[in-house]
């Protein structure tokens, strides 16, 4: 057991200071996307709703409903609509109300395109 004692002394404490200090490894993690509403056409919204494997994206009339809570950050929406769906860069998404995780993104109307 002395060997393990020495092993621990040599290794020291490796616990990070997160959340008191940011953890740099988080920069490498996939994150839920954000969407550029100004470029969200009807066709793109249909494509995104079809490609999302966890139904985090769905159409509701002239709105794309985005449930961040259902997103697994798989990146398929970003591949399907590059430039419209982009990495959000945030994973600290805790909220106190489930409804706060659901975003409604208005589609770009033909008149404004």
């Amino acid at each position, binding site marked *: 057991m002395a060997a393990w004692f020495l092993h621990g002394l040599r290794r020291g404490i490796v616990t990070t200071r997160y959340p008191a200090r940011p953890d740099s490894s988080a920069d490498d993690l*996939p994150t839920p996307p954000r969407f550029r509403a100004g470029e969200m056409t009807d066709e793109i919204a249909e494509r995104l709703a079809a490609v999302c494997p966890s139904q985090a994206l769905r159409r509701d009339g002239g709105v794309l409903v985005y449930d961040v809570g259902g997103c697994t950050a798989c990146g398929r929406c*970003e591949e399907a609509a590059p430039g419209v769906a982009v990495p959000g860069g945030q994973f600290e998404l805790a909220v106190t109300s489930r409804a706060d995780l659901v975003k409604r993104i208005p589609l770009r109307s033909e008149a404004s395109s």
Partner: protein
Amino acid sequence: MTAVQADARGILDEIALVARKAAIRDDGDVITAQIPGPDLEAVVHLLAAAPGARLAHMFVSDGQPGGEGEPVILRLVWAVDGQQRYLLTESAVEAETYPPLSDIAPAAFHEECEIYEQFGIRPATGRPLNRVVLPPHAGPDFPRLGHPPTQPPREVHAPHTVGGQAFEFPFGPVRQVGAESLYYGLVTSGEEIVDVHVFIWHKHRGVEWRLRERSPADGLFFAERMEGLSAVANGWAFAAAAEAATGLLPPETAARSRGVALELEQLYNHAAAVAALCQTTGLSVGQSAAEIALEQLLRLNAAAFGHRYLFGVVGIGGARRAPDPAPLRRDLRRDLPRAYGELRRAADSLLSTNSFVDRLEATGVLSAEQARLLGLVGPVARATGLGVDARHDHPASPYAAAPPAVVTRAGGDVLARFHVMLAEAAESVRLIGQFLDAGAGAAVPAANWIAARRHQQEPASAGQSRPAASRSPGSSSTTRVGSPARGCGRPRCATGGASTTPAGHETCSPTFRSSKPASG
């Protein structure tokens, strides 16, 4: 190392003797033998006894048992590792039963149970089968690959009772990190395990059923997620099947990216296994030491490939991500030895801890013959002396040019498995360095790879670009021949991209095997 020798030609000659009406077709990597139903049992006896031939899988195709419409076709996949080939036997099952194959080749038992649940046909033993895949509440309308059994299994071991002085120790399905959600009911009277009930239906998601009529890209997405700790291995296997069917050949740089990812996957799984061994032996300090290495390896995965568990690396026809550009490769070269060193130091301390070694030695002993009959692979098989390693026995690029050293031990116990994993971790570090030295990049074919194949077959005018194919949902964006795939904005990513691709860059486009016809 136990010699793995089998002469595929010799096996075929013997099959022809016992099954005179067998039709045999040699496709190079795979030999297909159509065996008449009455001869199947004799052929399985022959193959189960052939050294170096192991039953790798058994499955059926859809059909109607009992003579209505197309018959069910029972297929057995035998790996002839010494010859780098597979033998596929096909037999029509006319009735609701077929010969008791698991009596001859025990590796078939699990598949027999699943085939009964999914297709309603069973071995003609009359002995009880286990419920293995579908949950107990799966009624006749539960999604199946085929048809429900006309009779429910006579015994499903749930619920069941254990009599006498024995009791059942329930293990799982909720288990520690690195272990699947399986239930093991260990029947024991104290020290010796006399029986085991294995239930694997707790997380049944019907992936095979859900895959039907989906695109290959969707199939790859599901395959990666079948078992999250084997995303690269399962994704690569699926991609390889799609590539074989469509005649795609990934570029060498993309193949080496796959290789780097696969070796990283093995590394972190071995670190997790070491931690799990420490937990089961009650050595929490050792467990923490191994888990430090595990965390370092997972962070390395995220830095190199953008995902701690290496999702999204394999693409059909290539690799979607790579440790690219050069700073990432440099970081990988610097940090990988540190992480491996963490694991190695923990392992050295474990091997000098008697209480740990004593619990591993002579525990869970398997013989090489038992491992072969059970169709075992991986470190468990190699720890019995069987030198089976798909990277070596059925090599695809990059392993064809850089064969791994196959590590074996002769003890067959848990300590031998521990030593195999440690040696394999060292070998993985060596291979990663070799692949990086040779160049690892990301490249995937155009979204419509059939159209891309036609483009490649047409003569190109120098300096002219080809029109981009249309982009379909969920697929990677197209690449212009001679230009790289643009990323989605994340580092290392070769997929997605802007609506226009830059000019003046070099890329590695996939090639196509000229002997393979384009599929529709």
